Structures are given as structure tokens and as C-alpha cells.
């Protein structure tokens, strides 16, 4: 009787603990499941980017493969193309004195584009995310862009490449609550750095300035 009672006394808290443990595992699994989703990164900035404007009227275009770039991991999906298009849209507006939007269909190459001096196009947006872990292996984010400026007859005036990368070693528990937020911040830093590199490169490119002045001269001619 005593033995049975002892077993009964032991069994009650143990089963309670077991139930609690199972519930906690379930909650933890659910919270991990809730982490999976899309990485949210702002696709624009409050301030207009600083840029010594190029005196030209251009149409902005974003190639399909750049627009649709996505990176998928086991935990989340990052719509790098959409984020990049937002950033470059703002950047192109700051770079040229006048901008319009190039048609998606039919492609601008097949349309008369005489109403603009040129077309600036984001050709490629390539992104790579390598997840690290909490044991010291850093998360790696790398972004590469290619953009080209064409004249209104679809001849290439100049192309530029830029890339940026960020390695982040997690602090203990830093990315535990939401992995996508953690990577999102890293992705934001990398994207803004790569776009900035591209902007500075274009700003200092004499070929574009020469092309713009030629456009101005042509327009001034009777």
C-alpha cells in the first residue's frame, strides 16, 4: 500500500512535467514554424539620395530576371529582386534630371524611344545567403548588381557592376526569436551598400557625363 502510494506520488508530478515538456516542445516548434516566411526589408529610404545629377531624360527599366530574383532557405524566402527594384527606382530618380518608366511589354527595345535620351536598366540582381549557426559560423549575405545605360536606339552607352557582402557572427540567442528579422537587417545593409557603390561609380563615370552633354548639344541644335 505504501509502495503503491509512493509510486502514485512520484507519477503525478512526473506526468505533469512530461505534459509540460511536450507542450513546450510544441510551442517551440510552432514558433520556429512561424519564423518561416518572407524577409521584410525596406525597399526605399526617407531621404532622396545625394547625387550630382546627370542632365538627361531617361526611361527606367528593370529586367525580368532582376525583378524576380529570390533567395530561398529552409527558414525563409527573401524577395531580393523586389527590394532591389525599389531601391534602384529611387536611385535612378535621383541620378537623372528627368525620368519616366519604360514599357514592360512590348519591350522598350522594340518601341520607338525617341521621347527620351536613353534607357537605364537594372539587368541583374544576384543574391546569395549562406546561413551560419549559433556556434560561431557567420551568416553570409552577398548581393551583386549589373546595370546598363542605353541610348534611345538601344545601343549600350555604359554598363556597371557592383557587389557587397556582409558576414555576421550571431550573438547568443540573437536570431533565436526570428531568424528572418536577423537576416533581414543583414540583407538591408548589404543591398544599400551595393546600390551605393553602383551610384558612386555612375556618378564618377566620365563616359556618362560626356554622353549626357552630347545629348544636350544635339537637342540644342536647330
Amino acid at each position: 500500500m505504501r509502495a503503491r502510494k509512493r509510486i502514485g506520488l512520484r507519477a503525478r508530478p512526473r506526468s505533469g512535467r512530461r505534459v509540460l515538456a511536450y507542450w513546450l516542445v510544441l510551442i517551440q516548434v510552432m514558433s520556429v514554424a512561424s519564423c518561416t516566411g518572407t524577409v521584410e526589408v525596406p525597399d526605399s529610404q526617407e531621404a532622396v539620395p545625394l547625387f550630382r545629377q546627370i542632365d538627361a531624360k531617361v526611361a527606367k527599366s528593370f529586367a525580368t530576371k532582376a525583378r524576380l530574383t529570390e533567395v530561398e532557405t529552409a527558414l525563409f524566402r527573401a524577395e531580393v529582386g523586389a527590394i532591389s527594384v525599389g531601391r534602384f527606382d529611387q536611385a535612378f530618380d535621383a541620378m537623372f534630371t528627368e525620368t519616366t518608366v519604360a514599357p514592360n511589354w512590348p519591350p522598350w527595345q522594340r518601341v520607338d524611344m525617341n521621347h527620351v535620351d536613353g534607357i537605364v536598366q537594372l539587368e541583374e540582381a544576384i543574391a546569395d545567403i549562406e546561413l551560419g549557426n549559433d556556434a560561431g559560423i557567420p551568416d553570409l549575405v552577398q548581393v551583386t548588381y549589373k546595370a546598363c545605360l542605353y541610348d534611345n536606339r538601344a545601343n549600350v552607352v555604359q554598363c556597371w557592376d557592383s557587389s557587397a557582402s556582409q558576414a555576421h557572427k550571431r550573438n547568443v540567442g540573437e536570431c533565436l526569436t526570428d531568424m528572418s528579422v536577423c537576416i533581414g537587417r543583414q540583407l538591408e545593409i548589404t543591398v544599400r551598400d551595393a546600390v551605393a557603390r553602383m551610384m558612386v561609380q555612375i556618378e564618377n563615370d566620365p563616359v556618362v557625363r560626356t554622353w549626357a552633354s552630347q545629348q544636350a548639344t544635339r537637342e540644342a541644335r536647330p
Partner: protein
Amino acid sequence: MGKSTGHERSKTVNIERAIIVLFLTGSLVVPPPAATSAEKDTEIQAAQNIGLLWWPADPAQSMYSFSKDIDRCLTQHLLKAVPQFTLLRHETVQDMLYPLMEPGTQPENEHDFAALLRREDVRLRLADKGVRFLVAFSGSTRSEDWQGGIFCGGGYGGGGCLGFSWADKETALDAVLWDLADIDSPELAQASESGTSIMPAFLLPIPIPASTQAGACRELGQRISTIIKEKPDVQNIN
């Protein structure tokens, strides 16, 4: 037979305990302290603002955690020391000057920095936001290897550690203060603090890190505020 069942039960209990502990440690991640209302970048249009900028930014430093700590600490200190100014934190100033202050595009030296500040669009942007001073800060914390020794052992009766270890640590910070009313003469301020992290071990090793970062930051904040206060026109601002 009965013994093995007991072992299995105790194993199960241990696993359950471990799950509970893991859950609690995983869930009790302390969030970073929220910025106080005074720290928030309000009233950017005010006539006299001080902008903080981490420069030269080290792109290899993961997520800029060190700079964020210094940024927060300098903001708190300068808010107290020169309350007539509004503080604009690093991220605000970096956004304001985009794309010129990203890790890949920032000026390489003071000469280039001055050239950047002379750019008309930069001057207009900073003037528009009421920036009078720009504090470009940088620095790092260097830790030496652990000295001394801790011995750990264990047996059937239990286990534990015994010993004492220590490591020297130094935080060195420097800042260049740009007065936008006089770009040609930036002023330098430096501060450093060293300390020793200790780790006594009696059964368990307990690391006690030296807090050098806060001291160095406080000292740098004092030096910057002194330079600002010494400006003749600043003394008239209430």
C-alpha cells in the same frame, strides 16, 4: 531489471528538464533597451544639431554592434553635457548622406572627408537638417589572451574546477569633430580605458569581464562636449 527502468525514468526526467530549461533560456532573450524619448531623433529641423557618424566604418564588423553601443553611449552623454543641441544618431546621419557614407563608399581619409563636406549637395542637406557639428567616431576593443590557469576534473563523486584566470582588455576610441561653420579645422579627441577581466573558479568558473567600453566612451563624450562648449558662439546658445 527494476534498476534499468529507474535509469530510463531518470533519463526521461532529465530530458524533460533539459527541454524546459532550453525553452526558458531560448524564450527569455532580453531585448535591447529601447531608446528613450530624449534619444529619439526628434525635431531634426532644429537650428543646432550634432550628428554622430561611425567613420571609418569597418565593413568586416558584423552588423556594426560595437558602433551601435558607442553611438548610444555618446548620444546619452552629449545629451546631458550639451543639452542645447539635438543629437542625430549614426543611422540618421548615414541615411541623410546616402549613398556617400556606406562601408563601400565612405571617404578614405580626413582629406576626402573634408572634400565631401565641401560638396554643395552635402552642405545643403546638412544645413537643411540643422547640423552644426559632425562627430565622426571610431575605435575598437582589444583583448589579450587569458593568463593563469583553471583546472577542472570530475569523478564518480562529482566534479568541479579550481583556479584563477585573467585577461587584459583595452578600448581605444577616437573622434574627429567637424564644425560645419569651419570645415578647414577639424578637432581630434581620443580616449582609452584598460581593465582586466577575471575568472575565478571554485567548482564553477565565473567570468567577470572588465567594462572598458563605457569608461572610454564617457571620457570621449566629455572631451567632445568640452570642445563644443569652448566654441564662442556655442556659449551664447541656451
